């Protein structure tokens, strides 16, 4: 008797939970699951987005994508973006958060505000702003460098440099948010541990590596993932505004390339095939993350 009452209550609670989940599940299905299957479907067709008929081409789109040297160039670009974004938006803000929380004693509020501020401004605005700041001929950065006798490279037209430039612009947007999240994590670490270490004369870098990093790892891993996944999407905006993927696909990443194929060239099938392949790559990355990184993470609760 007692047990079944408890059971009944549990199933009621369960239904309530599902009921509450339902609205977001519908949205999820409508805007994530359905487009996903439709993309798979489209990747087997040749279609220009306006024609009434789609031609079935089997795996031809995949063959095209995989034999196209541009795909591999774009893939290399994507990896380069990931490395740069991780350095700029995970490593640096982590150190900033540590320094601000445990090393600095004054002006903390100001720094927090100043660093967070750009992340509420539109990236389109930021891109236009940086286009001016980083103008290789007449922008302020070029003028300052010129005073030291350094000629600024025409970054937007050079392979490699263009990715550095666009990553910098993206960081301007992403940095603040990542910083605040990491700061909260570092700030949440019990003071006693750190004070004890300080009393024992442990150097700051060891406090960071051996105490702070492990204790805030759960947040760190979250920031790692969003830096990769979201960062690559954020980069899209400056690419679109500044370079349109140029010079010769030197700044296109997988996400921009999929957009370019579909909405500039109207090669829907090609774009869909590229998108599906992109997703596979991300699956592999996530799997690696779960297998190797997640295991060593200490979750506080």
């Amino acid at each position: 008797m007692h047990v079944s009452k408890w059971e009944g209550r549990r199933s009621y609670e369960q239904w309530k939970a599902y009921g509450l989940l339902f609205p977001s599940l519908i949205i999820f299905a409508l805007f994530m699951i359905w487009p996903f299957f439709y993309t798979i479907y489209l990747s087997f067709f040749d279609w220009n987005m306006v024609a009434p008929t789609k031609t079935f081409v089997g795996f031809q789109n995949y063959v095209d994508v995989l034999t196209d040297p541009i795909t591999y160039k774009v893939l290399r670009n994507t990896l380069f973006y990931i490395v740069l974004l991780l350095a700029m938006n995970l490593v640096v803000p982590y150190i900033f958060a540590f320094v601000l929380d445990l090393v600095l004693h004054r002006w903390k509020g100001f720094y927090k505000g100043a660093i967070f501020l750009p992340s509420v401004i539109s990236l389109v605005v930021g891109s236009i702003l940086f286009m001016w700041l980083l103008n290789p001929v007449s922008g302020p950065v070029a003028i300052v460098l010129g005073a030291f006798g350094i000629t600024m490279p025409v970054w937007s037209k050079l392979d490699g440099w263009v990715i550095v430039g666009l990553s910098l612009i993206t960081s301007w947007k992403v940095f603040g948010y990542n910083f605040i999240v990491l700061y909260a994590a570092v700030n949440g670490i019990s003071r006693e541990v750190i004070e004890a270490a300080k009393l024992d004369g442990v150097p700051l870098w060891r406090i960071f590596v051996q105490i702070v990093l492990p204790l805030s790892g759960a947040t760190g891993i979250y920031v790692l993932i969003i830096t990769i996944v979201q960062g690559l999407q954020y980069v899209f905006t400056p690419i679109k505004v500044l370079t349109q993927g140029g010079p010769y696909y030197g700044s296109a990443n997988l996400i921009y390339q999929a957009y370019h194929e579909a909405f500039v060239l109207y090669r829907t099938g090609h774009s869909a095939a590229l998108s599906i392949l992109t997703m596979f790559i991300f699956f592999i990355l996530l799997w690696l993350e779960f297998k190797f990184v997640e295991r060593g993470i200490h979750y506080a609760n």
Partner: protein
Amino acid sequence: MKRWSIIGALLMALFVLGACSGDSKGSKEQAEGKTVIEYWHVNAETQGGQTVDALVKEFNETSDTVEVIAKYNPDMYKGLMQNLQAEAASGKAPAVIQVGWSFLDYFSNNFEFVSPQTIIDQHFEEDATFLSDHFLPNVMDLAKNAEGVQVGIPYSLSSPVLYINRDLLREAGVSEEGPKTWQEVREFSNTIQQKTGKHGFYMQEPADNWATQALLESNGARMLTDGKATFASAEGIEAYSLLRDMVVKDQTALHVPWDQGVQSFIDGNVAMVYTTIARRMQIQDNARFDVATVPSPTWEGKEVRLPAGGAMLAITAKEEEQQRAAWEFMKFLYSVESVAAWTEGTGYVPPREGVAEAENGLKTFLEENEMMKAAIDQMDGVVPWTSFPGDAGLQAEQLLLDVRDQILGGSVDVETGLKETEERINELLK
């Protein structure tokens, strides 16, 4: 976090409400007994949208028979085409629309339209010669499709001109009237860099081949002949080599994205810029030096061929009454006063004749804005902007952009680059 999402939701709600109220305002203006037609345009508030509204308002106040509702379409001419697609699917159509040049063939192959002259011949005898009286034949040709059908009438027109920084030209000791030929552009550019240390020249590099076409075709090359790409001719290679040499060999010309190039001209770091007249207002308002425009440089002894940018007006109305109303409205838009207002509001070149000199037209405006003159003077050299035919047209366009990056980046020489690209494009167009 929660507070932010509430603010976000409120903003969304405001947005939706704003959009709704915008719609209802349009329908309220419908008057009794008048024929109501829709005019679809792409001019946002900052890009001539205010002029569109002013013109439509003026027309509605003066016309007893026709009431026009102006409808703005975001995302330029492509967005308008997509909306038209949706409208056609539901069996409806606006009366007058703007069609961008690059969509000329796409539009005429996929949508119903009536050639303006047909409507004039049917209902408006007094206007029978309106088009031939007021438009240059080469300008009217811009709005003809591949089969030679007059799809619409040119409305928004732009052409490339050379902007010059006279202060820098004087400092370098070259003619302050600017270069007349492309060879001179190169010489000027060299001298300017030697004497002033500034960059000599920049040619616009947006995501299209508009300026490239002007450069190549003015030298006698043709982008397309009988449906096949032919730009890699000796003339085409010669023309492209000049630009490449200026960028790669002489290093007197800049190779940067469009906005940065124009910006560097405005702040005085580049002496000459080859770009569209539609940028005049931006350059004129911001330049702090003696700035002027000169017509597109020619190739020694050859006629210029300048692709037109912009759009035409086409009539998509289906019923007779709507079609008549459409022409009445279009005739108003092509009056001297309306075209003058359009030019002042947008920076486009007037598509018809008799506006520049007219007292009620642009006479005073042109006296104050001399920079427009270069573009108006070269109107007889304007030709259609080449669009590669068929489904692969856009890809062909992209290949040309790809090779531009490679040539100007110095990773491939002009002849190989152009020849290979031409081959690949012809492969696509088959």
